[in-house]
């Protein structure tokens, strides 16, 4: 039942991405509406605002979680599309390992930067 678990993880990460990315999108793009509601997003793309969020443990955790969810959801989806294009077992195996390696690298790089900013 290996593929059933992988597929189920795709659904679960899909919901989690919708929630976490929803928070991220609302915070980054709806700053005018948020300030009208009394929440100060502090010009979200400015340097001070970015550093402030990076130092905040809640925001840093949210972003790292979002990164993990998005990477799984997107790369599993990409693997699905690629599997429908190639049928050879060898290429399929190479696709799986390539995507896995890329995902781990992207996750390592994407967490390394916020973590050192959090500590600094």
């Amino acid at each position, binding site marked *: 039942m290996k593929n059933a678990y992988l597929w189920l993880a795709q659904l679960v990460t899909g919901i989690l991405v919708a929630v976490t990315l929803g928070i991220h999108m609302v915070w980054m793009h709806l700053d005018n509406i948020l300030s009208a509601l009394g929440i100060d997003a502090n010009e979200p793309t400015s340097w001070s605002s970015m550093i402030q969020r990076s130092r905040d443990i809640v925001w840093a955790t949210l972003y790292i979680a979002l990164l993990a969810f998005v990477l799984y959801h997107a790369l599993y*989806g990409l693997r699905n599309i690629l599997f429908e*294009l190639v049928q050879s077992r060898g290429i399929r195996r190479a696709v799986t390992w390539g995507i896995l390696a890329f995902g781990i690298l992207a996750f390592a790089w994407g967490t390394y*930067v916020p973590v050192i900013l959090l500590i600094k």
Partner: protein
Amino acid sequence: MREPHPKRKNYLGIMGWIWGGNYRIERYLYTLHRVTGLGILLFFLVHLCVTTFFRMQQQSWEAAMEILHNPWFKLGEYLVVLAFAYHSLNGLRLIIQELGFGMGKPAPPIYPYRDSLRKSRRWSMALVGTAALIALVFLYDFLVGG
């Protein structure tokens, strides 16, 4: 057994993902789901590079943000919001229906046939349609925020 003559391969290929004939709306939502998914993945990779490589120094970050505040990039960002709104709500519909909820029970096929997707189309399309509402809210902020 020897095959006297080669058979013609007649696979639609990738065009078969896009073109579908006179099928119902779900077939095209499927294509759009794929396109938006790949689009968001592409944006995400660029976004990951931008937000990690330029965040070490204040000057480089502010220089990068200066470029990204260009109206064309704003339009691009809005397209990502649209893609996200559609992909998440259609994804929610797919999760519900692929787990067999709201699909109804097997029914005796009596002509004219009504398949399970057709029976639930009213509410499933209402669910996907709320993406337009989300898009409008974000459009307001993009216009006000400049």
